[in-house]
């Protein structure tokens, strides 16, 4: 596990080697038309993924984290969803201006994605081998034989025991953890620079989860400039894997910072509350768990000021009227909270 420490301080090193960010999302707005009006699932989100880093996006349901990531690959079902504005640049190239065919070339080759439900992401009527080979043949134009050999290699790499034999099996013959390994193998077929993982371990058991996370870290360590964008609601998973963290709430980025800073010294009241309400961080016998009061507001009736003002315990009048900007702090992180205005200057 030496690579663990390596990944933790590698972004700075990688960033000097290749100055620009790998993926740059600027002021992204993804809206959904619903019967009750326009639901602003993602409302002006900006973040960047540096080469070689693992960026975590954390948030609860309805925070817009998944929609933001699906928007990067333009996988928003339209209708009802549409990208209303903003900019997505991959290695400097604007993704939102690409044609459908150009997008298809980027998906899989340059940016790959793995999803929460490996059961539904694989086609049940084709064998695992066929599905891996299909990806290889489409993107890399390999011969049948070469594709088969490469597919076995890939399945070996994701530690599927007896890979050659299991090529002939169908998805239902695999367990959830094994299927997620297959999904990773398919995603990594073409050596993508960016892997977007949308809740990759949420449907799995803890012991399987830790196997999959270790696998992802290990594969990542093999390629120094590749990046992972990990979307999850599980703060533990983020802490274990990510270099930097983006905290989302109400369709907006609320806090960005290094993992050590976010977990060690959360600055946004929401981040602070999230961490404090975890039972694993609670000392037994300290009375009840810390709670954030209230419920996540619906994307249809977000408060006008700060999105968190209805549940914040440090709220004051200005919060309800005026949405705070994302204040940049001296240490490079950013927090969307009026309380940090002074410090940001």
């Amino acid at each position, binding site marked *: 596990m030496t690579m663990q420490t390596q990944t933790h301080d590698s972004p700075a090193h990688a960033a000097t080697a290749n100055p620009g960010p790998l993926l740059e999302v600027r002021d992204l707005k993804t809206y959904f038309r619903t019967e009750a009006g326009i639901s602003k699932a993602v409302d002006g989100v900006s973040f960047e993924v540096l080469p070689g880093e693992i960026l975590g996006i954390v948030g609860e349901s309805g925070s817009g984290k998944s929609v933001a990531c699906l928007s990067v690959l333009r996988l928003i079902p339209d209708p009802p969803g549409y990208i209303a504005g903003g900019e997505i640049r991959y290695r400097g190239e604007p993704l939102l201006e690409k044609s459908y065919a150009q997008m298809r070339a980027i998906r899989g080759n340059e940016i790959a994605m793995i999803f929460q439900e490996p059961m539904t992401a694989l086609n049940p009527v084709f064998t695992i081998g066929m599905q891996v080979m299909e990806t290889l043949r489409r993107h890399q134009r390999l011969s049948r034989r070469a594709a088969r050999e490469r597919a076995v290699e890939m399945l070996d790499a994701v530690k599927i025991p007896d890979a050659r034999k299991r090529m002939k099996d169908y998805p239902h013959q695999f367990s959830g953890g094994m299927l997620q390994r297959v999904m990773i193998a398919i995603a990594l077929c073409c050596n993508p620079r960016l892997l977007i993982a949308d809740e990759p371990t949420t449907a799995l058991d803890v012991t399987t989860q830790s196997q999959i996370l270790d696998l992802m870290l290990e594969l990542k360590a093999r390629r120094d400039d590749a990046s992972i964008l990990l979307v999850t609601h599980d703060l533990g998973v983020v802490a274990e894997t990510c270099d930097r963290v983006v905290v989302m709430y109400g369709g907006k980025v609320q806090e960005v910072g290094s993992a050590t800073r976010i977990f060690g010294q959360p600055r946004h009241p929401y981040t602070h509350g999230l961490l404090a309400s975890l039972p694993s961080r609670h000392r037994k016998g300290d009375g009840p768990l810390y709670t954030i009061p209230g419920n996540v507001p619906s994307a*249809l009736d977000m408060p006008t000021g700060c999105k968190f003002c209805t549940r914040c315990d440090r709220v004051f009048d200005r919060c309800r009227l005026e949405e705070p900007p994302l204040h940049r702090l001296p240490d490079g992180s950013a927090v969307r909270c009026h309380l940090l205005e002074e410090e940001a200057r």
Partner: protein
Amino acid sequence: MQTKDPDQKAGGASTEGKKSLSLFQLRLRRFRRLKRGYYSFLLLLGLYILSFFLPFLMNNRALVVRYNGTYYFPALASYLHETFGYYERLGFFKDTVLSPQTFGIDSVLARTDYRKLQTDFAARGGDDFVLMPPIPYHPNEQFLDLGENPPNAPSRLHLMGTDDRGRDVFVRLAYGFRISMTFALIVTVISYLIGTLVGACLGYFGGWLDLIGLRLVEIWGAIPFLYTVIILCSLLEPSFLLLTLILSAFGWLGICYYIRGEFYREKSRDYVGAAIATGERDTTIIARYILPNALTPIIAFAPFAIVANILALVGLDFLGFGLPAPTPSWGELIGQGKANIREWHLVVFPLLVMFFTLQLVVFIGEAVREAFDPKVFSRLR
């Protein structure tokens, strides 16, 4: 943990101050917003209600006759008799057929020809008068004095012409509409009731009951429908009641499968478990918990079942195994169109009317399905 269904959240929005709507009310509201289906529904409903007043709109009996200071209502009398005639023994609504002598006309006929009476009264002048329905023809009345042999082409008197026995096509189509719709509605309701009951029992109790019950249902479903109908209709006198029973007896199978599947799915959901855990009785769980949730797909399917039943009746009538002879029916008219293919009005009008009606029902069906089970056609781009 997912943001993939913003539609769901839209429903879950805290609608402060607004009245709370049940799922059914929400769907009803959505149905009302689908204009094409909703207006089709209103139009069809209006026409159907109107069709119950057909004896006052299209009839050869007068609405009102005033003769020698006395008022007579022949159409009302015959209408009440036709509609509630089965209470005759109780003395209600006798069909008071008024003979020509009533109105001082010397004739050997038992029934009065009100159209002739009208012209007579008018020619005679005075206070006596006859008020005829807007279209003064009866569906079974033959017009053989139109100059040529029937069928006659459309004319000013008979807008859609007459059929091969000289009966007015428009009037027969109108009366046929009432019969077709009533028939389809009754068959749909009966088959839904049987299908729901059987399907609910099979699906909820499962086990051996389901195993054996389903086999019986399958055997029943394997009986060839058309042969059975033909055999039964040649053995028994076909009547409205008999046809309703036969079609219902075969129509509930599909509903049964549907409901059984829905019950299987719904009963594994936690709210049913919660109901069992609170000690609810099986009958309560079936009727109050699962049934309202299981009905959605078959409600959305109902308009299409009505279309199918209308077509079934038309088909049987067309083949000659349907309603007995003088009954005005669409299938019989379409059959005449086939037999007299050169008489364009016998081909075009029955088909047009049927097409128009079925189209209305299909529009309603589309809207109901859209309201109950919305599917957005979306793609990734």
